[in-house]
């Protein structure tokens, strides 16, 4: 079944075939010139296609990144819903970054309803975010990226060919899941994170135990670093400077909060997110693109590393040196290496936070009491794939009248396309398998989370405003029931 959008797309040759496309991710060839059509790119979260048109001289004419994911309408789903449930609903935007979505959602709700969580809650949330970052990065590196580097089609054959390396990464991933479970209660769609506090606390014993496990994981992290240092050569040598956008802070390598920083722009508070994530449409793309000062920008581990590398903990820096990652790295494939560096940093930072909690002693806090009121709020959190914003407007009863979620992968779509544009001339003339792999690896390097990002796709290819306007400019006279 073809998921490509029905409406006409410009460019005759580049149009994907209307009939049944070839089986997932296998290249198809037509007679005059060629077309490589990677239908439903595998080993990414959600559905995306890469369409490459090659002329009869084997020169790549165009290469396009398409997103045919089914839209899910989250901003409409939360309309009229109570502040109590919003984070519970938006968590379901993505199974992999459910904790990050919950935290961005809680921040926005808390700002809107003037709720102030305790310091202890903030520390626990930072730990929850570290746990998720580790989970997601390790899953991506071990299950989705490693097969490319070792020339196989999935993680499954690696159980036979590279059992030691794979089991090491699986053990780390299991630790990340266990860590998430201890802090958030569940690894996916956790229940403990609620507006104003925590529904349940981990015990001091659990914290001590997980602290020890984190400490004991250092040799495993070093082994993983050695593995990726040895495989570094497998990443294509491709540089394209772009703008890097991530949260920045004086205090730490920020994930949970900070200002919006950029490699090319001044720092802004998170509530001005619309001034950075400027979205626009172009005739030859099915997804909305975002730009700030340059033609596109990148969010994610590499952007965070480029902006905040000075705040990394010692072992993370050592690992960065070991895998050959240096600040202002402009090779998008190295996003994978930056993810590994972040895993190490998360382990070190988590140990520090757990020590802080244990020293102060965990305090049971009363179940948060919240008075609903009308208000607006913005949450900004660094999730595994980059900068995530949630923005809400509530009415007097604490029910949503307007919502906006700006997802990292949406901010990356334009950058992915610009990378593809610049990458394709360098691989013209290579075998189709090689072209397909190089391009797929590029998209995969961004770890795109497409099911998250679908609310902004626009197939019309025309200029136009975004569907959901931000809460700062509500339409006059619109009610919740609208």
């Amino acid at each position, binding site marked *: 079944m073809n998921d490509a959008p029905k409406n006409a797309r410009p460019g005759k040759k580049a149009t994907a075939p209307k009939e049944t496309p070839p089986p997932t991710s296998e290249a198809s060839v037509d007679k005059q010139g060629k077309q490589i059509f990677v239908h439903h790119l595998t080993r990414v979260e959600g559905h995306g296609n890469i369409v490459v048109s090659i002329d009869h001289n084997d020169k790549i004419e165009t290469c396009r990144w398409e997103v045919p994911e089914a839209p899910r309408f989250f901003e409409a*789903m939360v309309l009229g819903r109570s502040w109590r449930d919003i984070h519970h609903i938006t968590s379901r935007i993505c199974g992999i970054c459910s904790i990050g979505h919950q935290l961005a959602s809680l921040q926005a709700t808390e700002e809107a309803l003037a709720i102030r969580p305790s310091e202890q809650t903030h520390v626990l949330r930072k730990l929850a975010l570290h746990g998720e970052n580790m989970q997601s990065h390790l899953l991506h590196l071990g299950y989705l990226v490693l097969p490319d580097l070792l020339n196989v089609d999935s993680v499954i054959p690696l159980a036979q060919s590279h059992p030691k390396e794979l089991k090491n990464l699986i053990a780390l*991933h299991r630790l990340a*899941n266990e860590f998430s479970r201890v802090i958030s209660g569940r690894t996916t*769609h956790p229940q*403990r994170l609620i507006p104003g506090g925590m529904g349940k606390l981990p015990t001091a014993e659990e914290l001590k135990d997980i602290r020890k496990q984190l400490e004991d994981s250092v040799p495993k992290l070093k082994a993983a670093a050695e593995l990726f240092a040895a495989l570094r050569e497998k990443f294509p040598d491709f540089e394209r400077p772009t703008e890097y956008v991530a949260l920045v802070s004086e205090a730490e390598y920020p994930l949970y909060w900070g200002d919006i920083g950029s490699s090319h722009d001044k720092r802004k508070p998170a509530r001005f997110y619309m001034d950075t994530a400027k979205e626009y449409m172009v005739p030859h793309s099915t997804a909305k693109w975002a730009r700030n000062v340059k033609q596109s920008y990148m969010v994610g581990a590499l952007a965070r590393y480029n902006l905040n590398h000075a705040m990394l903990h010692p072992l993370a820096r050592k690992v960065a040196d070991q895998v050959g990652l240096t600040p202002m790295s402009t090779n998008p494939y190295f996003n994978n290496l930056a993810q590994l560096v972040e895993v190490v940093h998360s382990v070190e930072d988590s140990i520090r936070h757990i020590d802080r909690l244990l020293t102060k002693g965990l305090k049971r806090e009363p179940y948060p009491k919240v008075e609903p009121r009308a208000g607006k709020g913005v949450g900004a959190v660094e999730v595994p794939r980059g900068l995530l914003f949630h923005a809400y407007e509530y009415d007097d009863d604490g029910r949503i009248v307007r919502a906006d979620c700006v997802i990292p992968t949406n901010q990356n779509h334009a950058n992915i396309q610009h990378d593809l544009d610049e990458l394709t001339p360098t691989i013209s003339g290579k075998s189709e398998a090689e072209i397909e792999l190089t391009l797929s690896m590029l998209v995969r390097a961004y770890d795109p989370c497409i099911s998250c990002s679908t609310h902004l796709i626009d197939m019309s290819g025309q200029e136009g405003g975004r569907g959901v306007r931000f809460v700062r400019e509500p339409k006059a006279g619109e009610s919740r029931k609208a």
Partner: protein
Amino acid sequence: MAKAKPRVAFFDFAGCEGDQLQIANLEETLLDLLEHIEVVAFREVKTGDEPPYDIAFIEGSITRPQDEARVKEIRKQSTFLVALGACATIGGINCLKNFHSEAIYRTQVYGDRARWYDTYPARPVGAVVKVDAELHGCPIDRSEFLRVTKELLLGKRPWIPDYPVCVECKEVGNICRYDLGRPCLGIVSRAGCKACCVTEGATCWGCRGLAPHANLDAARYVMEDIGGFSREEAQDLMRLYLGWTQAPL
């Protein structure tokens, strides 16, 4: 000579892929399972897709005509079809949009470009094709997935609990949410989750769907007349996951 391994496939429609993540999260146990099955399609994990399938696991809701056609094709190629997680079994969170008129959810999200999108009210997989087994939950429970898969591999029809969450909630020793002055759907929801959300300090949201023969009128009576919650609060909870039920919510 050993019999060929059963051919297992995973597919996803509109959903968060959190259920497939639970399978990846089986870690080493997944490697053990892989010794007994052959994974022939799993887009999130591997490249390639080779029908037919002995067991097809389907995650996510059906929200577009073209998805309906795709799932019918999968059904044709599969001996056993298992719905994976709330979006696939009961429609789940995706059905929240069904309570708005189509014009509203389209324009709220896509503005004046809304008409370009194929979409119709979200529905569970079972509303479109025959489903042989259902793995409930948002997300699914890893151990239940293992148990059901084992039973399917052994040729047994898997058993899924048919009593409400309250039974398991008492078993694990939670204080009733109603005693704490909070609404809870455990009274009518299908068990099998060990009341994990209540245990974590939340309430039951009903992600495993209604238990067979659930009495919604009695549930409403408990929530509104005994618990003292407003009609709207009761409705909030019932609509969250149960959007595809025929019951008036």
